[in-house]
């Protein structure tokens, strides 16, 4: 079914978000102390839609950085799954919207469903905002994404100057949009403007390298000195994993006082030695080389094996935030060059 595209004058955005807030808890990018991250949009608060890519990825909307799993008192436990209104995420970028599809495969599998993820993610609406001006660190187009990709979105929003276009992607998106009176049907000219913006944005990102053979090349380079080279400047700070929209590893900890307490889960990172250090003192990943290899292999080999595609959406945050400029794109190119070099020698 062909669904109508809608249009909202920019001046009406606040009213639209209020309307959205009647049914949903609205999360949008908000600037605070120079950091732009997603948080619940309070009445009258301005969203930072002008910002190209939030510092913190929006995964914490569905998967909070710290989250109570259950409360307990002696032997009695009370699960603390989210019970609030459905969540609407407004202004996620296409890369981040795609990350939800990848995370969903981890949290919801045929054998085990993560109830904390499901409670927030189910019935949520994702309005993603297309990127008219991709950043130099962006590489979503390497990974089957693009600045106007709609994977993981219910509605794709495009800034066309004085207005936003709302293109429904899912039926849930369409059914919400069709219930909002202030939206007008977009004209042919509006749609043309969006189409032009899309072409411009895609062109600006250049031609991506083909990653079809990346997994095979990586698997063949398990013991290659390449890993020593790329990890030699890694500080193990975990800026990459905390800013990554698809990193999902977590720790579970207890906090208690006098028989009462909570079990919480927190984002964790494969960059930390304690991540795998065992009770005996043995650590199967003893150095930063092992840990960095784990991160890159997980994204570009293990995730492919388990979930059928790369565990990276090319948002470029790790490229921007790495304090020693480890650029995962250069690493990928390096893998191809090394693999080719090896092939040539044989």
């Amino acid at each position, binding site marked *: 079914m062909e669904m109508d595209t809608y249009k909202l004058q920019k001046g009406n955005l606040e009213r639209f978000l209020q309307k959205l807030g009647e049914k949903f808890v609205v999360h949008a990018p908000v600037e605070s102390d120079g950091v732009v991250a997603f948080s619940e949009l309070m009445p009258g608060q301005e969203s930072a839609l002008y910002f190209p890519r939030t510092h913190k990825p929006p995964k914490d909307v569905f998967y909070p950085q710290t989250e109570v*799993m259950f409360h307990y008192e002696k032997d009695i436990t009370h699960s603390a799954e989210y019970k609030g209104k459905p969540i609407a995420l407004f202004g996620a970028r296409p890369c981040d919207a795609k990350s939800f599809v990848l995370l969903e495969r981890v949290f919801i599998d045929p054998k085990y469903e993560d109830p904390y993820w499901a409670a927030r993610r189910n019935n949520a609406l994702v309005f993603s905002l297309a990127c008219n001006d991709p950043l130099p660190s962006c590489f979503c187009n390497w990974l089957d994404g693009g600045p106007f990709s709609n994977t993981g979105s219910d509605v794709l929003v495009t800034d066309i100057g004085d207005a936003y276009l709302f293109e429904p992607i899912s039926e849930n998106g369409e059914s919400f949009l069709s219930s909002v009176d202030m939206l007008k049907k977009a004209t042919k000219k509006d749609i043309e403007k969006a189409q032009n913006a899309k072409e411009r944005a895609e062109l600006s990102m250049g031609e991506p390298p083909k990653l079809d053979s990346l997994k095979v090349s990586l698997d063949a380079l398990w013991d290659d000195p390449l890993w020593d080279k790329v990890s030699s400047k890694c500080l193990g700070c975990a800026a990459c994993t905390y800013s990554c929209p698809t990193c999902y590893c977590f720790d579970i900890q207890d906090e208690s006082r006098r*028989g009462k307490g909570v079990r919480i889960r927190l984002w964790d990172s494969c960059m930390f030695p304690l*991540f795998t250090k065992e009770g005996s003192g043995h650590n199967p990943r003893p150095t930063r080389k092992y840990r960095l290899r784990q991160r890159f292999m997980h994204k570009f080999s293990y995730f492919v094996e388990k979930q059928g595609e790369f565990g990276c959406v090319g948002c470029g945050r790790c490229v921007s935030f790495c304090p020693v400029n480890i650029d995962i794109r250069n690493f990928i190119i390096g893998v191809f060059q090394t693999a080719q070099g090896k092939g040539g020698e044989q």
Partner: protein
Amino acid sequence: MKNAYIPISVRVKKIWVESDDKTLRTFDLEFVNEADAFDYMPGQFCQLSIPGKGEAPFGIASSPTEKGFLRFTVNRVRVVTSALHHLEEEETIGIRGPFGNYYPVEKFRGQNVVIVSGGFALTTLRSLAVYLCDPANRGDYGGITLIYGARRPGLMIYRDELEEWEKKDDINVHLTIDEQVEGWNKLVGFVPAIIKEIAPSSKDSWVMVCGPLIMIKYTLPVLTELGFPPEHIYTSLERRMKCGIGKCGRCNIGSKYVCFDGPVFSFAELEEIPEKI
């Protein structure tokens, strides 16, 4: 689907000290509510949970053929295991599971099974031995051999039970210690050397081997020499774990999660994974 992170209440039915250095204790647990009882298979593990202290994974040492209790043997290492060692009978704790896969007992049908173990890694292999030797199952399998070594007699777990098994004719038990001590009238020598001596036939046979890495390292070549293909040699792996359900991301070896795809792997599977065990 039920929330797999919420522990179920179990009561400590019985506790005893398992080793003379007192670092190992065995716990028999029973469900507070019988309705919570779960089915499991030899080789699976559970997370034992102590509110305020946390959780740790342990292989189930009882067999599903033994009704009314779940058995675990716990080595005291740090926070959770120390808290477990301080438990008293009748106290309640939490349990989650059973998690992971199990020893491929379906593949053993009509075949011989050799169980090789060292130190306190006997836990899930005890479960397997009891399962295979259960009167309801014993007829389905050929010869069952157990080769078990410990540094000294006092560190040998389930010793009374093993000595009972020595008298039975449905399982061949070979117990060994590293060096001769007074009063020991069984085998002396490291596990790999003992396997070489006993030389179990690899024909229609499967080996399950669990123990310290160093034991496994020297056992594998002996088994290969005896003609066991890697597809017929299985082990159970350990890694630091949190969730137990393949989500928290830390226990992987290559693309396999030990908690979800394992903990039981054949060496043929492990050879495919470049990351070392």
